[in-house]
Structures are given as C-alpha cells and as structure tokens.
C-alpha cells in the first residue's frame, strides 16, 4: 500500500506532500486544486515499471497522460511540456512514494520518455560492481536507472542505458528482490479509470473481457447491472458488429449492445471489470460518481469496495460529490475498510496542501451546516 506521496513540478503542482494515505483515499477540493494531477502523478510513477496502457487506446502511459485531458494527438516529442508546470521542462518532474515501507523516487527528465527510478548510492555501487558491463546514468548526484527496455538511441546522455527488470532483479540480494518484486507488481498493475473509458468500450473489452470470462467474473458485472441499473439482464454475450464482435446484454426478449446502455451503467461496468481483475495494486478513479444515480452508485460502490478488500486494491479517487463521500464512508464502514478524505488547496505558487479527515469528520461538518468541499474557508 502507498502510505505517502510527494510530487514536485508536475502539471499545476509545484510541491505537494500527502501522508497517511489510506486503503481508500478520496481527494476533494475546488477546481484546479490538484486532485486529477495527483492521480495522474501516481499513474506516471507506475510508468517507471510498466509503460503500456492497453485500455486507454494509447501506446504508453505517457501518451495517455499527454492526451487524457484533451485529445490532440500529442506525443513525447511534440507535447511533453504539457506535463510540466508553466511548460518549463528544465527541472525534472519528481514523484516520491512510500510503498510497503520502501521509499521510491522517480524522476521524469525532458530527455527521457518515461520515469527513471532513483536508487540509493550504495545500491548503484553494488550494481556497478556486480555487472560492470551495464552502463548506468553517469551524472553527478543522479543515481537513476531505467527499468524498462526501449529505444535509447536518441538519448542525450549516451552513457545511460536501460536495465531490464529481470537483470536488475537478479542483481539485488534476496531480501531486496522480494520487496522489489512486490513493489514492481503493485506499480505494474496500477490502472487509471475515468469516464472517458465509457467511450472506449472496445478497448476495455479487448483488454479485459477474456480474462474476466475465464474466471467467470462476468457474473459480477451482471449482478451490478441488474441490481443497480434496472437492467433486466440475464447474461452477457457477444454479438456481431460489422466485421467484428462486441459485448452485449441478454435481456428476456432481446439482446442489446453494451454500447447502447446508459452512461452510468457503462461506467459501472468498467469499474467492476477493472476491480475484479486487479490484485495487490491500486486503482486511480476520477470522479466515480460521474453519470451515476445514487441507487446505481450504491450498488457499484458496494461491489467495488468488496473487490477492493478481497483483492487488496488500494483506491485513490477524486470527487466533487458529498453524496459519494457519504455513501463511500457508509459502505466502507460496513466492510471494515479505512477511508480518508483529503481536502486539497493550491496556493498561487502551485504548492498543494492536503488536510485529512475521516468520513465521520465530514459528517460532523455537515451536521453543523459546513460543507467539506469548502474547507478552505475555515
């Protein structure tokens, strides 16, 4: 589990530090307070361990982040500056995480296309002495390694080369290897979910459906659609669509394509599918309340939190909804899952401060007539 995070120089965030993250961490605050940027920073950090983003429809996580807010077909070479504050790319983006009691530091430099992991000097020395043939980044005070294979031909610093994970893992002693394996696995599985995915159901189906069906986890989707969205669903199936097939819902008298369900039902389907297949990792969810009637939201959240508990999934979500906070707090309480709410405030310089509170705190504020989303006034 990620217990704390630090971000510097990413999007609109100059500096941000959040401690005591929980099994479920909800980010609230005014527009432009940094909620989405924090989710994106976590996703960016995960790119150091696995750069692919199959569900998003983009080749890499970086490409997805470059286009997530506005699809302009940006690529690393044409739009990298959008990831930096004020488009100033000289200072590397830094993300620091405490994960499984291990401090991880990642940096994204303007001359490299995905984040590099910073290792301790002693570990770097060990690496250098063990495999002297493997070049490492030879910049003063920068003990970074690239965990991923990739084309490094155009790198500014030719002395630096990627170290495939397997090679790095081999070089670490057993204890560290075990811990690093867990960290890598956690970060590797980290996924970003937002409501734009409901317009990319084809990607979702391609990436997840076979795995879901194999373990018959499709029943979970059926159950949520039936209970929360008033869909008289009997089963899920595939129907021809042009020269391909697409996911469809079997109703008593007809079959309709998943694409033709309402937005809320499709977002719930995506959330449940992703949570059903995730294990020992984290889900980053932007505005889970999007398109949701409270009735559907309760059923979806119920399923989501059950899966989160069962599959050890840490959830980070941004929200503008007091209703969502309340429902999440109540369901989490029933399931004995810890929830923390972080109210974010960004000053003019871009420093983001987080105030933490429990769902009970938010409930007390509400009873007093104070809205947790306006915490900046007090």
């Amino acid at each position, binding site marked *: 589990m990620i217990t704390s995070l630090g971000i510097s120089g990413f999007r609109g965030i100059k500096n941000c530090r959040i401690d005591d993250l929980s099994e479920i961490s909800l980010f609230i605050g005014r527009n432009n307070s940094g909620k989405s940027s924090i989710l994106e920073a976590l996703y960016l950090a995960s790119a150091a361990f696995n750069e692919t983003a199959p569900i998003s429809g983009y080749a890499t996580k970086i490409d997805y982040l470059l286009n997530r807010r506005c699809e302009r077909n940006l690529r690393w070479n044409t739009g990298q500056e959008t990831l930096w504050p004020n488009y100033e790319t000289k200072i590397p983006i830094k993300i620091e995480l405490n994960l499984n009691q291990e401090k991880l530091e990642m940096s994204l430099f303007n001359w490299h296309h995905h984040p590099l992991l910073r290792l301790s000097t002693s570990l770097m020395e060990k690496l250098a002495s063990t495999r002297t043939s493997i070049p490492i980044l030879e910049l003063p005070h920068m003990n970074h390694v690239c965990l991923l294979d990739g084309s490094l031909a155009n790198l500014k610093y030719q002395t630096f080369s990627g170290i495939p994970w397997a090679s790095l893992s081999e070089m670490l002693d057993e204890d560290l290897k075990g811990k690093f394996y867990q960290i890598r696995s956690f970060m590797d599985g980290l996924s970003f979910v937002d409501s734009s995915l409901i317009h990319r159901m084809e990607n979702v189906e391609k990436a997840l459906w076979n795995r879901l069906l194999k373990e018959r986890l499709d029943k979970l989707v059926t159950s949520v659609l039936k209970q929360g969205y008033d869909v008289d669903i009997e089963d899920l199936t595939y129907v021809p669509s042009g020269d391909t097939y697409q996911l469809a819902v079997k109703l008593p008298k007809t079959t309709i394509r998943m694409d033709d369900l309402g937005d809320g039902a499709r977002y719930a389907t995506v959330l449940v599918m992703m949570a059903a297949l995730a294990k020992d990792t984290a889900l980053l969810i932007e505005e889970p309340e999007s398109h949701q009637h409270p009735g559907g939201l309760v059923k979806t959240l119920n399923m989501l939190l059950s899966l989160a508990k069962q599959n050890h999934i840490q959830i980070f979500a941004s929200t503008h909804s007091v209703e969502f906070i309340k429902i999440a707090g109540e369901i989490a309480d029933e399931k004995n899952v810890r929830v923390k709410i972080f109210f974010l405030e960004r000053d003019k310089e871009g420093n983001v401060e987080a105030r933490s509170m429990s769902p009970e705190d938010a409930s007390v504020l509400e009873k007093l*007539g104070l809205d947790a989303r306006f915490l900046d*006034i007090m």
Partner: protein
Amino acid sequence: MPFIYLKTGKIIPFIENEKLRAIILCEGKGDAEILKDIVEKLDVPSRGNVAVTDCGGISMISEMADSVARVARISKALKKIAVMVDANDQTFEQRIEAFKNSLKDHGVNTDYVQEITESLHVVKGERIDIAIKIAGVMNLPFAKHTIEDHTVQLLMLEGKIKHGQLRKANSAKEIIQSKEFGDIIGTADEENVKRSFKNIIELLKTTTN
C-alpha cells in the same frame, strides 16, 4: 457579511471564498436564533467573518465537545470556536468543568484556560482558542437553566411578566412557549437586551475580537 448563519440551506456564502475567523456552535436551532436576534438588535461588530450554527439539538456535552474538537483539528483559518451550552441542572463551574474534561477526552489540550467571567472560559490553544459559554440565569427559580432564562429576564425588564409567575414553571422554556411574545428581542428596549443578555454579549465580543 461578518455573521454567516449556517444551515439556511444556502450555498452562496461558501462560494465567495471568504475565510471564517470564528464559528459559534449552539446546542439547538432556537439558541442560534436567539444569538442571531441579539446580533441584529445590537448590530454587533466583528473583525472577521463569524459563522453561527447549531448542533441539531444535541445536549450531550460529549457529543458537542466531539464536534468542537473535530472542527478545531480540521480548520486552518479559524482563530476561535465558541460553544454555548445550557447550564441545565448544573452550576456554571460544574458545566464548564464537564465541557473542558470532555474536550480533553477528545484530544484538546486544556492546560491553559482564561476565565473571562464565571460562565465564560476560554481554552487557549497554540493555533485556535475555544470559548465555552454556559447559558442560564442562576437566580431565576427554575430547576433547569437554559438560554431562555435570559429571554425571561428580558420579559421581566420589559414588564411583560412578573417574578411571581415564574414559580409556576419548571423552566424558562415553559414560559416562553406558553405565551405568544412575538419578536421579543427585536421589539425590546436596547438597554434591556444588553442587561439581560450581558454574558452572551460577552461571548460575542470574545469571539469576534
């Protein structure tokens, strides 16, 4: 807009993004309304925005102290939290002591306390002060003392009820509720309001300065 009344169902006051300097928590809606009447009658000035709200009729000291402790912990801009509690069947001293102990149970440091009056103490904190005001007029012949005691006192000063009538009632609430006095504070003489609500005005001064 120095005084902001919460629980009006309006969201606009929050949109303005003006920081609150203080918040006053009353036990129930009626207590907050009396406070509002006093503020309007006397045109009480304030150095900053002060929110006035109620705890939904909670009379349990522990629950109110819990609310105060949570607000104190979460807030950043607030300089003062004031809480107004009825004395009920306790003395001012007993009630204040009970509240302080409850605050302590909820993690508030109560080592430094300033006694403003017998019924108004301020727990001094590094970042935020918590004023505890106990409402009630002890020399009125009621078994339980509440904020309505002050209103009864005002009615007596205004000549609208006589002392002898008080003996028939168990509490000031009975007197206030049994008769239609209309806008008691709004129509009363300003000096009489100042005299009968002296201690509550002291709380407002302490909170707004």
